[in-house]
């Protein structure tokens, strides 16, 4: 078995080596004609505005969280699935309880609308005042 994993390691290293070797070959063969303009960030011909390492949509984070929950579940399910034939009905019922709890989770996320990419009806939070009613920083300082 160790030998099999060693093969995998050799494949990984060989893959990296293959790319590295080709990069070296490419470096030797290519015509290099450097110019500072070539090194600028591409933004459809415009000069890049601001930094690109910016905040991105929080939705990606939610997707990542849901993914994590299900992926951990799948890691638990695989050993069960492998010996399912020998375990029989009892293991099936047990695992169905586990899966059911997760499906309730999926139903909750679904119902809450976190699986929608576009959120059409954002329910306003009653505790947060509309922007027009909020005090500006100056007013807050003045009030203190």
């Amino acid at each position: 078995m160790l030998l099999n994993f060693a093969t995998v390691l050799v494949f990984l290293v060989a893959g990296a080596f293959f790319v590295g070797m080709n990069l070296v070959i490419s470096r030797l063969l290519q015509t290099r004609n450097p110019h500072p303009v070539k090194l600028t960030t591409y933004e459809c011909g415009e000069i890049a505005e601001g930094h690109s390492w910016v905040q991105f949509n929080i939705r990606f984070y939610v997707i990542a969280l849901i993914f994590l929950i299900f992926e951990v579940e799948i890691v638990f399910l695989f050993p069960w699935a492998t010996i399912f034939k020998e375990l029989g009905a009892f293991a099936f019922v047990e695992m169905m309880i586990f899966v059911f709890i997760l499906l309730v989770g999926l139903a909750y996320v679904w119902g809450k609308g976190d699986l929608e990419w576009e959120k059409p009806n954002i329910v306003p939070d009653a505790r947060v005042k509309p922007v027009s009613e909020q005090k500006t920083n100056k007013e807050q300082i003045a009030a203190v």
Partner: protein
Amino acid sequence: MPAFISFLTITEFTIFGLPEDISNLIFMVLGAAIFCGVSAVMALLGVYLERKISAKMQDRLGPMEVGSHGILQTLADAVKLLLKEDIVPAAADKTLHFIAPVMIFAATLAAFAVLQFSEGIVFSDLNVGIFYIIAISSFVVIAIILAGWSSNNKWSLLGGMRAAAQIVSFEIPASLAVMVVVMSVGSLNLGDIIDAQEGSMFSWMIFRFFPFNFIAFIVFFVASLAELNRAPFDMPEAESEIVAGFATEYSGFKWSCFFLAEYANMFLVSVVITTLFLGGWRSPFGDFLNSQPFQLFWLLSKAFVIIFIQMWLRWTLPRVRVDQLMYTSWKVLTPFAFVAMIGVGLLMIL
């Protein structure tokens, strides 16, 4: 087993009386080199087929100039890519920018190690084979995020984030569909999965526990399309929206690494689908035409049918929107995958 087969099975042979460890190492490196070549050839062939098939579907000729019927066109393109100047943007994170293409190709190549190409021809007969494939293909996500992030380009970042969200979303239904097969076989080893499908084509996994395994097959196929970033799920590279997605700031050979990996992954996924659901290298007619060379022929022809369907879909369907993508993954495929899993479980204990 014929002599040349034992030449190809690890642990059973030593080269010219060399110590076992060294001959094994030589064998492994040889295998890795073969698969580097295979994935490069698959990429060349894949791009050529893609061009020709799309041309036929759109009633044009496709590449015709280089070689007979343009057969050498992709080779010429590969040479062109090798000769291109390698540009790393000044603003990029140079280390990560370099690691991303290396990682995506190495991960793809490593997945090839466990595939069975015909009876007994396998480089690494892992007992956790299919689980290992799922695990190592996840490296692709990391490489794509790295590429998107390190380029320091807004298109790249958007493409990278989209790709990550897409691939991880579709990994859930894909893994659940694999689990259906694992449940009915009782092993994670690819060899055992193929052995369980012995007989004519009606003993293939796709026809077991009807209709649940068939549902699992459809779920896995659609999910694998999305994991490959192929149309209709090619949002990460949606050229009409975000230029070239995560690959915007890549050029020359580094850029071609992503495409090499994409086409190699296409081949990988087709072989995995074949292994899981379509009897692997087994002949569809039971023992008829099931000798060693024919097994390779059957495996490749099944895999190429799958590849053809992938290309057919690409040139037939329009690209879905990002919200439709999430809908497909979480609200259609995942529930169906659960239904298939529970259904197979019920049928098995009854």
